[in-house]
């Protein structure tokens, strides 16, 4: 798996103005499982741990400590080699509104924070200040900024740590190793592509798992209809608990209350280092949104969407379609496009107007995106493996995807006992699935063989009834494989020779052996692979007719076979559905004890339906016969038509 610097395509041109060295630095920072990255995160996590220790002192400190896990903007800042570059990247990644807030609140602090190598004392001071501020400030609005500020400071401290390596810090290093391992690669606060890479949905839809889980939960009807959706604040500790679980990939239990799900989704979006619409394109999206003509908007949006990185587009499509589903239930949740955009456009870092426009067009913009509920790969505690070959294949793909992720994470040094156990378990499930699939395939081969024998029986009389005095090796339908390949082979042998002209006739002993002792002159039609006898041969037409007819019948057979397979799958699906319903019915005893008809009525009704059904059955059979006859006629005509081509 390739974890290398995804930012190149994610933020095209973002670093265009910067020196190459800073670019490479960034790439190292961003590239997921590189050692440097790991190291960096570890350090950060150390700090988180440390802050946690201090948590008890202040009431609201814990909040800040948990929140401040990672904020790539700051990563940029601290990593950039020079002051000017720092401020540049900073401006780039933060939205205008944020910047404003920052400026007004922190005019004096900003330059300090951006100073290149402030002495440790100064930093200590700053940190103290920062803490004080935390005490004073409890407003949620400001939390973001504060978190960032704090992180920034922590980062500087970290640098110092590196330089000084004081005893105390080293001790901490040792004690926090466990947490470091678990927190090495966060999901929140990294680019969309990284988050997607790190917590995949293994069914091929490129969304970070946390987004998928939240949307899955919120897409349930009772969630969509709930008037709490996107309105009620969750319990903060719960929210942070889930954030931590997802960051640690410990999310065995997914979110189960609406406010938390909404806020977790919002938190993920808010902590993205750049808007979903990308810093490059967001301005152009805004332009389009202010376009007066609604009809033009859609095509222009379409064009812009094409330019978004794939994972951004997927994420955008899912959240928009989800939001659309929310406002479809306005009757229940009292949210329309306007009010929802009011609530969520700041999170998405776009204007209210743009969000309304996107909501208005989203179903047309993403016609082929369906919000499918995620079914995670099976584990050993799952009830059983699927039986249907198609389901097995789907499951295999999921498990393979999971296995690849485990391997790449382990190769990068993300190794825990749990991971190793999981590796063996996934491998075992894959082996079982493969064995099961193989036995299924064997069974299917057998049944198809049987099918072939039965279905090829009816068409057989048709060619036989034809006035065919031809060498019949060419087309007995039962031995279709040999006959199908035969013309192709002869075509290959003749390919090198000019064969279009019927006049230049070739002799090929090896193919003629099969037909008859006297060498027959023929050519092979390049397009169809048919054998064409010389025009003088009286049997030319017959042979051609038979070949064409054979082709048509084969087509029919294939068509029927695929239909049979489709029906079989349908049967299987319905069976499953039936079982599910049965279980449901058992769970909830039948409430419907409606008015039962009198005994006599009941019998009469039954009789009526049995008679009706048998009648329908008969009719259906007749129609089936008719279809078969019509189809035969069709084939005959088709053959005549194609005969004209030669």
């Amino acid at each position, binding site marked *: 798996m390739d974890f290398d610097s995804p930012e190149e395509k994610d933020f095209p041109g973002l670093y265009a103005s910067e020196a190459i060295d800073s670019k490479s630095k960034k790439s190292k920072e961003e590239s997921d499982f590189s050692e440097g990255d790991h190291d960096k995160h570890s350090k950060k996590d150390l700090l988180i741990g440390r802050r946690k220790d201090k948590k008890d002192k202040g009431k609201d400190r814990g909040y800040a400590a948990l929140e401040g896990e990672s904020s790539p903007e700051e990563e940029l800042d601290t990593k950039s080699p020079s002051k000017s570059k720092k401020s540049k990247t900073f401006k780039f990644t933060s939205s205008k509104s944020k910047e404003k807030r920052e400026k007004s609140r922190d005019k004096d602090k900003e330059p300090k924070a951006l100073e290149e190598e402030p002495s440790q004392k100064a930093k200590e001071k700053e940190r103290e200040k920062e803490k004080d501020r935390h005490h004073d400030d409890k407003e949620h609005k400001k939390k973001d900024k504060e978190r960032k500020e704090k992180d920034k400071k922590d980062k500087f401290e970290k640098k110092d740590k590196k330089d000084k390596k004081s005893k105390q810090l080293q001790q901490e290093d040792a004690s926090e190793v466990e947490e470091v391992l678990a927190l090495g690669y966060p999901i929140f606060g990294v680019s969309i592509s990284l988050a997607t890479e790190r917590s995949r949905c293994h069914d091929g839809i490129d969304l970070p798992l946390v987004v998928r889980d939240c949307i899955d939960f919120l897409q349930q009807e009772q969630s969509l209809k709930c008037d709490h959706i996107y309105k009620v604040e969750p319990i903060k500790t719960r929210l942070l608990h889930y954030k931590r679980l997802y960051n640690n990939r410990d999310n065995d239990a997914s979110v189960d209350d609406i406010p938390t799900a909404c806020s977790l989704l919002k938190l993920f979006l808010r902590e993205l280092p750049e808007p979903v619409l990308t810093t490059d394109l967001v301005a152009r999206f805004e332009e389009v949104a202010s376009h007066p003509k609604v009809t033009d908007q859609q095509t222009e949006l379409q064009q812009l969407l094409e330019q978004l990185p794939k994972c951004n587009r997927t994420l955008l499509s899912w959240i928009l379609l989800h939001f659309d589903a929310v406002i479809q239930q306005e009757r229940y949740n009292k949210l329309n496009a306007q009010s929802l955009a009011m609530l969520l456009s700041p999170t998405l870092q776009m204007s209210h107007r743009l969000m309304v426009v996107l909501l208005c067009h989203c179903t047309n913009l993403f016609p082929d995106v369906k919000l499918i509920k995620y079914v995670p790969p099976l584990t050993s505690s799952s009830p059983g493996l699927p039986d249907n070959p198609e389901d097995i294949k789907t499951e295999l793909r999921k498990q393979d995807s999971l296995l690849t992720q485990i391997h790449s994470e382990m190769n990068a040094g993300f190794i825990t006992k749990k991971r190793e156990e999981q590796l063996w378990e996934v491998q075992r499930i894959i082996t079982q699935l*493969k064995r099961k699939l193989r036995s299924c395939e064997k069974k299917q081969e057998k049944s198809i063989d049987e099918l072939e024998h039965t279905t090829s029986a009816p068409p057989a009389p048709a060619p036989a009834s034809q006035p065919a005095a031809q060498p019949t090796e060419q087309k007995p339908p039962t031995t279709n494989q040999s006959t199908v390949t035969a013309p192709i082979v002869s075509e290959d042998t003749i390919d090198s020779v000019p064969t279009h002209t019927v006049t230049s006739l070739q002799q090929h002993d090896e193919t003629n052996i099969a037909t008859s002792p006297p060498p027959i002159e023929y050519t092979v039609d390049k397009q169809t692979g048919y054998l064409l006898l010389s025009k003088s041969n009286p049997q030319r037409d017959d042979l051609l007719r038979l070949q064409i007819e054979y082709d048509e019948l084969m087509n029919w057979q294939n068509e029927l076979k695929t239909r049979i397979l489709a029906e079989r799958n349908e049967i299987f699906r319905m069976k499953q559905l039936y079982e599910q319903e049965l279980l449901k019915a058992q769970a909830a005893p039948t409430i419907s004890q409606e008015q039962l008809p009198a005994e006599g009525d009941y019998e009469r009704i039954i009789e009526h339906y049995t008679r009706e059904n048998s009648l329908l059955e008969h009719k259906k059979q007749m129609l089936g016969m008719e279809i078969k006859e019509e189809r035969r006629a069709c084939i005959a005509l088709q053959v005549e038509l194609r005969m004209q081509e030669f």
Partner: protein
Amino acid sequence: MSKKPTAGPALHKVIMVGSGGVGKSALTLQFMYDEFVEDYEPTKADSYRKKVVLDGEEVQIDILDTAGQEDYAAIRDNYFRSGEGFLCVFSITDDESFQATQEFREQILRVKNDESIPFLLVGNKCDLNDKRKVPLNECQVRAQQWSVPYVETSAKTRENVDKVFFDLIRDISSRKKQRQMDVKEPAKPSPCCQLL
């Protein structure tokens, strides 16, 4: 790990290594399902679990059947790290596969960093003795150098198939018990000292 055996039967992790086509999968499938697969299909990685009775005690054995081909060497380390015992297989009809065992041994020692890791050298395809390319004493010499047992097997006739697996898990099991003893013994003196 030491806590787990108390919950369920002890679990021993065995890894099959060796060049491609020497019969690692054949041995595994013969042991697991008593079946012999004639047609060759390269393995990427497969894992199996089986309950067996080892010296009257029920244990679970996890077998990981790895790829012989170099193409999958990158993922090999991840498996080797978690393996507790190794069956290093070669074909007695193929000298190259015998030479390759040296590399596998080295790789395992590098990852496990333990000279005495449970390990068996297995010469497979002994039913094809008439096509033997690797002399018996050469195999024995190598096994002696490594101070590991050498066993010849046939996945086709099932000769010694159970033996290699059972010998290995017996080795793993006794090592684990030894470890537990080691942990317990030094623990004892300390309370004594406190009493004194």
